[in-house]
């Protein structure tokens, strides 16, 4: 073939299998028809042998490579069968076996290509060139050559070539390729953006944080491929079985010939000696499912997790940031024998160095109150009284509110709270986190305790009834109330709330409808937990849990015989995620840790993907079982048919190839789940 021009040679190579199959198929059809008409004379035999040679040469070459590699593969078996059939004068059987095998291989290659292409659209997402600012002009460079820190310009309608943070400009960005979110996300300066996403309107300049191989999309693709390549437990068991099955059938074939002297029987046994459908079925199901998930913003970390996820019967949710948005904001501050502003200020000092989500809410509130007043952007959205308005009127009342929810709130006894908080919040001198309870800080020789009741009990601080009553009221609304104490005296209560995600009740209902139990685990107190659990429709909630208690709760569920999935943010919940049968991390696109540690990572903060992922896993599990079923049934029937002489060489090959195609096509259904 080397005499062909390069383009033709390339075309021939790329389409060799199709051409070979077509030619050997035509020869086979012609030879068989001629034989049928003339009674299988010499002419038809010659055509059929030619068909075998045309169709069989590439199989024989592959067989030689198998033998060189010391493996006993199907191509060796088919070659032996074809040569044997010609040897005993069974010409049309030889041609049929070769043609059917070529046709099967061609179709297998084509369908597998489709399965493998599921990731192609992701691979092609990142543009090759980037417009980058160098020496104060915009130049086009290959995207992978952009350095971290360089500014990249993206015009409306363009795909982002790098990961980075918006430096200038605003745009709606379609993040579907990375997170699977269907609605575009509005990006402003400072917001994180990902390579492969699309700027829909408005040009943006991006400060690069990652380019080339070092982007979120590339990392996701790598993880997806690794996941697809990792063998599932079923596939491992089957491979072990296959390594015994083939030699056993070859031995059976030799034994059968020794006993019966029937060469046709032995050759037929060789043809069905490769458990093709059995070996190919499970990987195709897994690859299709993982490819489908990747396109929907769900990273499944491999067949093993997928098979386990398919038997989940209990999903445990973390509360904050999972069932709720996690955007905690202060809803009210009340002072008891103290003004609200100083309560907030004390809390802010104590929480200054804390990384807890409550701390950022308190610091936000403290920071906000000196600017545009309290109550803007509160989670309730009510237009309650900004504390700066009421702050001017004095009041003799002992309780003082800063409330966004209570317009009639009694104002502070102090003058304008701006005076109290306008100066920057100082750092505490000492600071200690009591996990799951709160913080204890020292500031100018004063001890500040900010935390829940159990922290106060632990510190030996008595809680007056009025404060306890107020805390209870707040908690019954689903808010979290923390008590602020100065030198052992409780001074006030700060209530924070966090919006329940809109999709949460629907997701919980969907899971329950699918027969999956739900539970909620939270560090928050009983009453707050109950309010949120009621709102989303979860019956089983466990409140006031420390991180290790959450882990213990998961262990308890497992000991009770459940297959448990835990949904959390992947960082704070890492231990419980690891303890669960399947750890599901939300909003993983921005956090590599979550991508690394979770079994299932949801790229977007979209709870709705959970029923999808659980459903897909269950479908995959069923699909794998079906494929194993099809394959075992085929092998069993073929073996029985051959040994009872009901199935001859060509029919054996046909059924074998048909079963391989059946499992591939069945597995591919998962691409469209």
């Amino acid at each position, binding site marked *: 073939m080397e005499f062909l021009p390069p383009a033709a040679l390339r075309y021939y190579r790329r389409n060799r299998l199709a051409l070979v199959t077509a030619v050997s198929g035509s020869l086979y059809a012609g030879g068989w028809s001629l034989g049928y008409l003339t009674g299988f004379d010499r002419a038809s035999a010659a055509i059929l042998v030619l068909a075998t040679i045309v169709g069989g040469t590439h199989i024989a070459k592959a067989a030689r490579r198998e033998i060189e590699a010391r493996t006993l593969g199907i191509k060796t078996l088919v070659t032996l069968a074809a040569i044997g059939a010609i040897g005993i004068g069974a010409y049309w059987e030889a041609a049929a076996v070769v043609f059917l095998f070529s046709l099967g291989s061609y179709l297998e290659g084509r369908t*597998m290509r489709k399965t493998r292409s599921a990731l192609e659209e992701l691979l092609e997402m990142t543009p090759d060139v980037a417009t980058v600012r160098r020496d104060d002009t915009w130049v086009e460079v290959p995207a992978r050559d952009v350095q971290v820190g360089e500014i990249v310009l993206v015009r409306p309608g363009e795909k982002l070539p790098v990961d980075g943070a918006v430096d200038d400009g605003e745009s709606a960005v379609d993040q579907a390729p990375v997170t699977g979110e269907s609605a575009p996300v509005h990006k402003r300066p400072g917001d994180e953006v990902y390579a492969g996403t699309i700027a829909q309107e408005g040009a943006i300049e991006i400060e690069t944080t990652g380019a080339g191989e070092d982007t979120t999309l590339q990392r996701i693709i790598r993880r997806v491929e690794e996941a697809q390549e990792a063998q599932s437990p079923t596939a491992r068991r089957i491979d072990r079985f296959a390594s015994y099955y083939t030699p056993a059938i070859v031995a059976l074939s030799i034994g059968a010939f020794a006993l019966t002297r029937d060469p046709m029987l032995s050759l037929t046994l060789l043809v069905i000696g490769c458990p093709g459908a059995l070996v*190919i079925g499970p990987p195709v199901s897994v*690859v299709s499912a993982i490819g489908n998930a990747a396109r929907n913003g769900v990273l499944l970390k491999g067949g093993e997790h997928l098979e386990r996820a398919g038997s989940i019967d209990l999903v445990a949710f973390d509360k904050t940031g999972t069932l709720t948005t996690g955007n905690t904001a202060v809803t009210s501050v009340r002072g008891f024998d103290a003004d609200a502003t100083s309560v907030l200020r004390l809390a802010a000092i104590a929480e200054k160095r804390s990384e807890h989500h409550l701390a950022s809410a308190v610091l936000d509130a403290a920071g906000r109150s000196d600017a545009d007043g309290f109550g803007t952007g509160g989670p309730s959205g009510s237009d309650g009284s900004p504390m700066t308005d009421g702050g001017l009127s004095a009041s003799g009342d002992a309780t003082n509110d800063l409330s966004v929810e209570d317009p009639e709130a009694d104002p502070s006894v102090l003058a304008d709270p701006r005076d109290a908080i306008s100066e920057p919040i100082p750092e505490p001198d000492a600071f200690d986190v009591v996990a799951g309870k709160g913080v204890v800080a020292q500031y100018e020789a004063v001890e500040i305790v900010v935390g829940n009741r159990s922290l106060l009990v632990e510190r030996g601080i008595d809680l007056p009834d009025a404060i306890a009553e107020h805390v209870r009221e707040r908690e019954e609304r689903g808010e979290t109330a923390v008590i602020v104490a100065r030198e052992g005296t409780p001074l006030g209560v700060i209530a924070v709330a966090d919006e329940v995600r809109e999709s949460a009740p629907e997701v919980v209902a969907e899971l329950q409808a699918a027969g999956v139990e739900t539970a909620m685990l939270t560090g928050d107190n009983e009453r707050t937990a109950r309010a949120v659990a009621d709102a989303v429709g979860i019956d089983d909630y466990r409140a006031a849990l420390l991180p290790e208690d959450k882990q213990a709760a998961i262990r308890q569920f497992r000991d009770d015989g459940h297959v448990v999935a835990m949904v959390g943010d992947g960082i704070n919940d890492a231990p419980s995620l690891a303890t669960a049968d399947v750890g599901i991390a939300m909003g993983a696109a921005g956090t590599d840790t979550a991508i690394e540690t979770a079994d299932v990572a949801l790229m977007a903060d979209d709870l709705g993907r959970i029923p999808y992922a659980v459903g897909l896993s269950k479908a995959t599990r069923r699909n794998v079982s079906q494929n194993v079923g099809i394959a075992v049934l085929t092998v069993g029937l073929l073996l029985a048919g051959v040994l009872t002489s009901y199935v001859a060489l060509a029919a054996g090959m046909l059924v074998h190839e048909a079963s391989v195609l059946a499992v591939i096509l069945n597995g591919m259904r998962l691409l469209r789940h």
Partner: protein
Amino acid sequence: MSQTETETTQLRVMDFDCPTCASTVERALAGLDGVEDVTVHYATGRVELTYDPDLAEPAAFERTIEQQGYTPRVA
């Protein structure tokens, strides 16, 4: 032992028709000059190669895969 700088590259073969085919391609590539490590994944069609650029010629990788009857693609 002499220190040599190795390079890695990735190719994609989308039309493997059986798991054994992927392993025979893997062995053919491993036999090339300068190829230090090669893994061919049947499920994804991904070919990972580590080679010594002084000894190996990357164009030979694609040629070898074509000779085995499959269609390589740079990825």
